[in-house]
């Protein structure tokens, strides 16, 4: 069977490239508005609360909580078809951002993952970036 690859982010996308570049150094980053302190995530070049565009980058601890999850049993994409059953999840980072990822490192995703479970980032290393996956903390 061919070795199908996981789809990877585009490092040239204008709003999110800084986020993905930081993953090379194992940094899970998010933005805050310097003017009004709003957490902005996914990354942008403007504040979604005030009219400002003065955003600062911060590094998250990598700790978070499973907000919700599903175990995918059927997928058509050739990479993910080979991964089933796998868990997709919304992860609430302790610093506020919510991101979509996978929960890994469990024997049985259907029974070993719960809403509210504490998780920790685990990087999946690729050539030009790393992907923030999560495992139970």
């Amino acid at each position, binding site marked *: 069977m061919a070795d199908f690859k996981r789809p990877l982010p585009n490092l040239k996308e204008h709003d999110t490239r800084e986020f993905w570049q930081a993953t090379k150094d194992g940094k899970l980053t998010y933005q805050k508005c310097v003017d009004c302190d709003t957490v902005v995530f996914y990354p942008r070049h403007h504040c979604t609360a005030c009219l400002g565009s003065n955003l600062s980058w911060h590094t998250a601890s990598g700790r978070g909580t499973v907000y919700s999850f599903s175990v995918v*049993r059927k997928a*058509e994409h050739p*990479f993910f078809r080979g991964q089933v059953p*796998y868990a997709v999840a919304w992860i609430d980072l302790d610093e506020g951002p919510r991101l979509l*990822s996978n929960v890994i490192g469990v024997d049985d995703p259907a029974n070993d993952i719960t809403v509210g479970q504490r998780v920790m980032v685990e990087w999946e290393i690729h050539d030009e970036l790393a992907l923030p996956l999560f495992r139970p903390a």
Partner: protein
Amino acid sequence: MVSQARDAAIVGVHEYPSRKVDGKVSSMQIKAASAARALADAGLTWKDVDAIYDAGEGGGGMSGLTIAEYFGLKPNVIDTTAVGGSSYEFHAAHAKRDIAAGKARVALLTYGSNALSQAMAIGTGGRGGFGTHPAENMDSFAGMTLVSNYAMVARRHMHQYGTTSEQLAEIGIATRLHAMRNPEAVAAMTALGFLDIRETTIDDVINSPLIADPLHRLDCCMISDGGGAVVIAAADVARDCKKVPVWILGSGEATKYPENGGDITVSAARQSGPPAFGEAGVKPAEIDIAMIYDSFSITVLTLLEDLGFCKKGEGGAYVSGGRLCFDRPNDGPALNTDGGGLSSNHPGMRGIFLLIEATRQLRGESTSQVKDARLAVAHGNGGMLGSRHSGGTVILGRD
């Protein structure tokens, strides 16, 4: 009931009967064939149409240009709002607004899709597509299928409110009951190779295979070909049409998207519902027919709550005991009396069928007719319920 502005009405509808065209018919041909039949249903012709509404599913980019030419029309109003499956509720709302403003007299809405023929893996593909949007660039590595997107709403709903898979199953049971009474839905399930075409039970649903936990196969809509058309006319035109007018009494529209700390059990309907009911001057308890976008069972449960049929979190109890079946008119509204996306058709963006079946009910033409049905709500959900989506609410009523 407060006084309602009756300035625009649905006067013509057509649902393309085939759900499996085997690649022999294009989406544009489905749109044109449906438009001609809907105009004939109204007693109007192509020449009467002066406003066109199109979501771009047939001809790709700049559909406002290409669809007018394809139909041979020279409309004065061109609206290409494209917000996924709810586009047609947005179009109906905009048509009423444009007619009330005196910009148009006869509006044409069309939909055509050969999603099945093109073997589109809508539900289980790697993910829904939003081009090169930055949000997609954050999400796409995780392999969230469409089904798992909705499943995460169901999981969170279960966590917050104790909702069960058995309660979710009630939605598919009601729509299947209605589908079995609709010959076109039975033909659709037959053409699509459904294994067991009959009324279903809670056990049938929860024993069907998990596609993305906690959603089972029978919590998910079908993928079909299909299409349809709706004609909306100004009051003076409507009163001279062949069928009784089905008035557009109120509308609302909204979008919703992932927010840090947000609640994914709440949909865009929370924002689009109140202005629609308010404009119409009616309450959810007065609604006879609930045409609610049933891409998945959890979609209906969430939307019923957000539209105010019950409190947030009480949807599981609300839908239980067959309350939504057409033969229980004193208990609540009848849900998706054509069989819905779960059991009649789902070519990708099925919002137009909500308007079509609501119109049939208010005319007395449904195969699961609710006696003396007077008020209907059509609520479309476009995009993905668990992340970015649109909600369009339309309240319909007869004289």
